[in-house]
């Protein structure tokens, strides 16, 4: 269980002024839930994810995972960034194994495990290729395998499909749902796309900007497994409409 308690983050900008990125965020996430975080640019959704990962420390409040306060990156957390961030000098297989090398957790069957993950995302046969030889979508698939190699309980995804074209993006959304069904884990998924947010989530956390606050949390009770056909569903439309109102509403008013 992830408990976010009155979390705030203030950045000191270069001219000395304080910028409140997040203010008073409280949120409880049950195990194996798919949570998407959606909001306008500058609402602090990436900051929230980085706080949960332990890469940065909060100004006040806390993130607690399984009753332990997060103070540094945890071994049971996997992260996927917006860019694949693969090592250009390592093969796809070595890139996937990279976290285990860094954490000194490489075991006899690690390579087998990496091959299995790559096969699962359709990268079987590409183990020996270098990142530059793959397309953006394939690189991001490899990055997802890398985040899964140490079998984390929690997967943090910071706009993982943001740099992909629209078609690849839809395909990747379905792919991540499939992975999540096969290997249930808690996923925090930051996105700009309202459709993506509703399609994937058990709960959508809608945020507002300046300062970053939670505007509303929307439960999505659509049946699973989901495909894009669910977009036609009445409840999908309702949820998406509600999110649009929350994000754009005050601009019209």
């Amino acid at each position, binding site marked *: 269980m992830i408990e976010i308690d009155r979390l705030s983050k203030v950045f000191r900008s270069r001219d000395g002024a304080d910028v409140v990125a997040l203010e008073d965020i409280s949120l409880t996430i049950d195990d194996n839930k798919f949570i998407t975080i959606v909001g306008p640019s500058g609402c602090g959704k990436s900051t929230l994810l980085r706080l949960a990962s332990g890469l940065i420390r909060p100004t006040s409040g806390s993130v607690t995972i399984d009753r332990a306060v997060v103070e540094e990156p945890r071994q049971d957390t996997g992260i996927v960034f917006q*860019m694949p961030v*693969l090592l*250009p*000098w390592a093969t796809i297989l070595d890139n996937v194994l990279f976290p285990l090398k*860094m954490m000194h957790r490489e075991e006899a069957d690690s390579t087998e495990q990496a091959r299995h993950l790559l096969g699962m995302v359709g990268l079987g046969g590409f183990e020996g290729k270098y990142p*530059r*030889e793959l397309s*953006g979508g394939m690189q991001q698939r490899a990055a997802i395998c890398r985040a899964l190699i140490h079998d984390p309980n929690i997967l943090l995804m910071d706009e993982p499909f943001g740099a992909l074209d629209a*078609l*690849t993006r839809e395909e990747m959304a379905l792919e991540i749902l499939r992975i999540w069904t096969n290997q249930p884990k808690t996923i925090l998924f930051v996105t700009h796309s309202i459709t993506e947010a509703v399609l994937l989530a058990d709960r959508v956390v809608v945020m507002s900007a300046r300062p970053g606050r939670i505007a509303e949390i929307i439960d999505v009770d659509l049946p699973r497994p989901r495909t894009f056909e669910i977009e036609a569903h009445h409840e999908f439309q309702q949820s998406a409409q509600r999110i649009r109102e929350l994000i754009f509403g005050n601009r019209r008013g």
Partner: protein
Amino acid sequence: MNSNNPPSASGNSSSATDVADTPKIGFWRRSNLGQDVLLPLGVFILLLIVWEAAVQIFTIPVYLLPAPSVIWTDSIALAGPIGEHTLATLRTVVLGFIISIVISLPLAVFMTSSPVISSAIYPLLVLTQSIPKVALAPILVVILGANELPRLVITFLVAFFPLVIAIAIGLMSVPAELLELGRSFKASKFQELYRIRLPYAVPFIFSGLKVAIALAVVGAVVGEFVNADKGLGYLIITATAFFKTPVAFGALILLSIMGIVLFQVVVIIERIFFPWSAASQETAIA
């Protein structure tokens, strides 16, 4: 320069057409033999013919400008001694180059470890570069003695600076995302250096090495001008003193060939041991 994200082709995960159309990573580049080799060779031979003809027609004295044929015959006549001089210079160049690497690498790592250290050392490095090496050489001979050491020090001083700068820039230009990735896996400072920063810097290091090897040849000759009893630099000094200009030209040509061969050795080492680095430079140029 290292494109992590070529635009994705189709999204079909199982299709081989998904692979981005990037050049193959490997030892051999595709090269157009006719245009890359034969054309410059032809121009070179043409120049030699014009040179030979000009010397013959205008009857230029041999001590001023020897014809290519005279350079060839005079140098061949002295092939044995010239070979020894070449080996002596080669030894100075290679040793000086190795000293440059051995000193530059830790120095660059040390410099980039903190902004304070960097700002403390960097002005000193610039100072070593602003000193004219030709002027420094005789002083070094007095300090270090008339032996091989001042030649090696001069070679090092001429060659190391671009290498330090190239390595330092490589270590510093690692994308923040890559460092963050390391931190998310709890990488130690040493792991970050060894597994992320240094590999990332390899293409930069090789750019530095290519400049350094060319400069090492210059440094060795400067050292030999000032103090030597062997070497191609020494040979040029003694040959010109006796107006044996063809031999001096022969030494000059050997120095050029040495520079080209050593440069190519660095290029080949990069292609064999760091093919991804060589490939990344090819696409950067292409």
